């Protein structure tokens, strides 16, 4: 028997991003279709009525160009729309207005930040502008199975980002999508929500013997509706293709769907059955010309992106890769962080790095914990950066202990009360006076003879335990440094 070969995975992604424009791609209907009553966001254009003509939405084109620039692409000075012809009930014109051979952007890359902190460049083949289709609703009316058409989504602007086959694992594919989402959110061109279909992904995947240059036969996977399902679908496809190859069977070039429940891909159509879209230039929309000035203006609107921030935060504040990644996950989070650092810098002495690390600790352990627990977004936060800094300063100057500080922050996040208010309300001021703490220390010594004995025998590390009990006794208010001093004195 031949020993099973080792294979490497080659993945390329096609990502559709629905743009968050006010109006649709080719008419003035509202593009905000999600959750609306069916067929209420429509006009002759997006219903494909006879005689209606498309007029392109300049804002959408601007957004598409923005994504192109953010992904380091070459933006075409001259571009055009094409018709992609096919029949389907959710496509009212019988063709989709898309771009074929002159996409708005080509040849870029996304610097993919891997989990181990290294960066891998994933090539971007092209980014083009198009319009979304309507939606089919399969339902039962008067006991009869029917398919209904909702055209609210018809004509909503979409961009398609096509990557090079540079992705080598399902994990990387998931990261690519997450980072794509981060980019479109930073650019504020889309909410990037996979659950709502604002971000959609098809994957091309093939295997080849390790070290081979030639690509294997690729399979396209569709209907993956979450980051997790992209990862799972690709994992399952690798297993399927590996066993076919090991059995020396041929991989069929085809489109496969992902069945979330069965956790399996299934065949949808083979290459022979694939449609000929009969692309030709859209005669109703004149070619687009982008001037240098327009391009410059669009460039100006691009903010510092997540990856750039991630790099800068490490350098500027000496943050770890992990902390930098967490703090730059969203533009609002990074903004909150940097605002807080700057308030702290103004309010206290110390280096930028000290301030940066201090604030980062509070956010990652306190604020992020709260956000993760409640599922709230940083936008919804009740606490202002300056309020967080007020608390940090109370901890720094010993007004409250670190432990109490964590408690206070939690309360602040949930109730919108200020740190000062909570401290007073709950009497959480740190007790640093030796006279007030002596009683507690005496009580602890009295009640824990075992530990006291150990300490006296030279096992000085038990002091930590004793301080802990003392803190508990003081309901977290005792200054641990003062407690330590007292224990040291009394047990000597």
């Amino acid at each position, binding site marked *: 028997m031949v020993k099973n070969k080792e294979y490497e995975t080659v993945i390329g992604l096609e990502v559709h991003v629905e743009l968050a424009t006010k109006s649709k791609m080719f008419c003035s209907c509202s593009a905000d279709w999600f959750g609306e009553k069916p067929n209420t966001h429509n006009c*002759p254009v997006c*219903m*494909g*009525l*006879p*005689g*209606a*003509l*498309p*007029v*392109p939405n300049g804002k959408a084109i601007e957004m598409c160009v923005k994504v192109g620039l953010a992904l380091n692409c070459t933006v075409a000075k001259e571009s055009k729309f094409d*018709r992609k*012809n096919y*029949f389907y*009930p959710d496509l*009212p*014109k*019988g*063709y989709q207005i898309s771009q074929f051979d002159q996409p708005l952007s080509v040849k870029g890359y996304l610097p993919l930040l891997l989990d181990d902190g290294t960066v891998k460049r994933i090539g971007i083949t092209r980014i083009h502008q198009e319009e979304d289709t309507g939606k089919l609703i399969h339902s039962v009316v008067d006991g009869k199975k029917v*398919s209904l*058409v909702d055209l609210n989504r018809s004509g909503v602007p979409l961009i398609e980002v096509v990557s090079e086959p540079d992705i080598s694992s399902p994990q990387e594919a998931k990261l690519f999508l997450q980072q794509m989402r981060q980019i479109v959110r930073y650019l504020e061109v889309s909410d990037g929500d996979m659950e709502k279909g604002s971000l959609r992904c098809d994957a091309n995947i093939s295997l080849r013997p390790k070290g081979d240059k030639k690509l294997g036969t690729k399979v396209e996977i569709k209907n993956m509706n979450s980051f997790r399902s992209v990862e799972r679908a690709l994992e399952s496809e690798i297993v399927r293709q590996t066993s076919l190859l090991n059995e020396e069977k041929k991989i069929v070039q085809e489109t496969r769907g992902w069945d979330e429940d069965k956790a399996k891909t299934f065949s949808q159509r083979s290459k022979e059955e694939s449609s*000929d879209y*009969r*692309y*030709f230039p859209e*005669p*109703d*929309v*004149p070619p687009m010309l982008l001037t240098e000035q327009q391009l410059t203006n669009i460039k100006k609107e691009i903010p510092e992106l997540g990856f750039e921030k991630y790099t800068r935060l490490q350098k500027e504040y000496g943050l770890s890769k992990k902390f930098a990644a967490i703090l730059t996950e969203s533009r609002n989070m990074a903004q909150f962080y940097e605002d807080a650092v700057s308030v702290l810098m103004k309010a206290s002495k110390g280096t930028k790095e000290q301030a940066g690390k201090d604030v980062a600790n509070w956010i990652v352990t306190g604020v992020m914990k709260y956000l993760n627990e409640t599922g709230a977004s940083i936008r919804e936060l009740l606490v202002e950066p300056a309020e967080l800094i007020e608390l940090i300063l109370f901890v720094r100057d010993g007004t409250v202990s670190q432990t109490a500080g964590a408690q206070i922050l939690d309360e602040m996040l949930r109730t919108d009360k200020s740190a000062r208010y909570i401290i007073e309300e709950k009497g959480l001021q740190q007790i640093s006076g030796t006279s007030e703490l002596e009683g507690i220390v005496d009580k602890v010594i009295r009640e824990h003879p075992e530990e006291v004995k150990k300490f006296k025998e030279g096992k000085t590390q038990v002091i930590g335990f004793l301080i802990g009990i003392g803190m508990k006794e003081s309901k977290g208010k005792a200054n641990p440094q003062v407690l330590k001093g007292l224990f040291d004195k009394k047990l000597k």
Partner: protein
Amino acid sequence: MQRFFTLTEAREKLVKKELSVTQLIEEAVTTINTTEKKLHAFNTLTLEQALEKAAKIDRQGTVKDIGPMGGIPIGYKDNFCTKGVRTTASSNILGNYIPIYNATVVDRYEKAGAISVGKLNCDAFAHGSSGENSDFGPTKNPWNLEYVPGGSSSGSGALVASGGAFLATGTDTGGSIRLPASFCGIVGLKPSYGRVSRYGIVAMTSSTDSIGCLTRSVKDAALALEVTAGKDIHDGTTVDKKVESYTSFCGKPVKGMTIGIPKEYFVKGIEKEVVDATEKAIEVYKSLGVKIKEVSLPHTEYATAVYYIVTPSEVSSNLARYDGVRYGYSDTEAPDMLSRYFNSRRDGFGAEAKRRIMIGTYALSSGYYDAYYKKAQQVRTLVCDDFKKAFQKVDLLLAPVSPTLPFKIGEKASDPLQMYLSDILTIAVNLAGVPGLAIPCGFAKGLPIGIQVIAPQFEEAKMFQAGYAYEQETKWHTMHPTLGENNGKK
């Protein structure tokens, strides 16, 4: 008879209150009621609404305040969407279709005060040169009921020539305004591509569809263009160029102008009567002090071939929306989605629409695209360049509209290729996007003949200037058919 006033003359009478709008519309209604049985110019009549509207205008007072077309009867080709009024494009698949919006041009005419008398028959989806491709039966030529009125704006030609309205809209994709104007002895305006909005007009060939009109005089056409031309936010291919006062060019002298005669337009097979009439027209221009110069448009012979690739290609895509899902004819009994598509389209489209869908689908298929569509577009550029070069030497071009006199109903219906050749002298103008104006230039065998004046893109003013000068000198436009009575006599 009042019905043989031109629009401009009728307007004067309305403004001076020598005539009420109701009188004018009643006259139109009477005329249409007698002629329609013979001509079949209409798919839908809106005479009652027209009379109501007329009465309303009369009650309100003076037409002058209403607009430049106040009280003027107009007919819309049935591929212009009219809100609440059935719009079929003369096809079964849209047989019961009622639009929810007006075409921009319809809005502009309505705003100017025009009163619609109804929707006019045409070749289905404007595919044709004779009017015979209407799914609802052909329109007859008012000069001889056995002859075609020319197409595709067949009803428009017949209505205006027979005196039912002063103005009818048309679409000219390869000659569909100029040809019926010529066959019916009236004026036909095909504006520059991009001059008039296409929004709300059932698309045929998006890259060559021009929205114009058929009238009884050059000045009327100039006025119609003043009303309809200009940028439309709903049509991205309209240009933001100033709309000139075209009527003010009607009457300016033409002395010193240079008109080119494209030698390629005197093709083999062109009928002698057509050549004679054109030569006489050239003599008229010479007598007006115009310099005549022979020019060459060397790629003319390829224009028809290019057109019959580009057109079906775009048609195959433009007709895809008629799928029986949302509106129009639908086989609702079909057992599944695919059969519903097949049956609705099989039964809803006529032979010519199907022919164009098939040719176009083939020409756009991968593997054939480069050889057909792409090549055709490259040759189209050469055709455009021909015009650009010619217009460096001359102000305007002059040529016959059709190589033949109007032909008999049924004569070419079974031979699509012969039919396609009717457009041989009009097609290049559409491919180049330049404007053309058809003007009556005489009669032979009792049937009208027309010439066309062709101008550089967006220079319609010059075209009206030259057209008007000729018209005033010859007065062919004052001849009217008697409809069956005394066939063949003027």
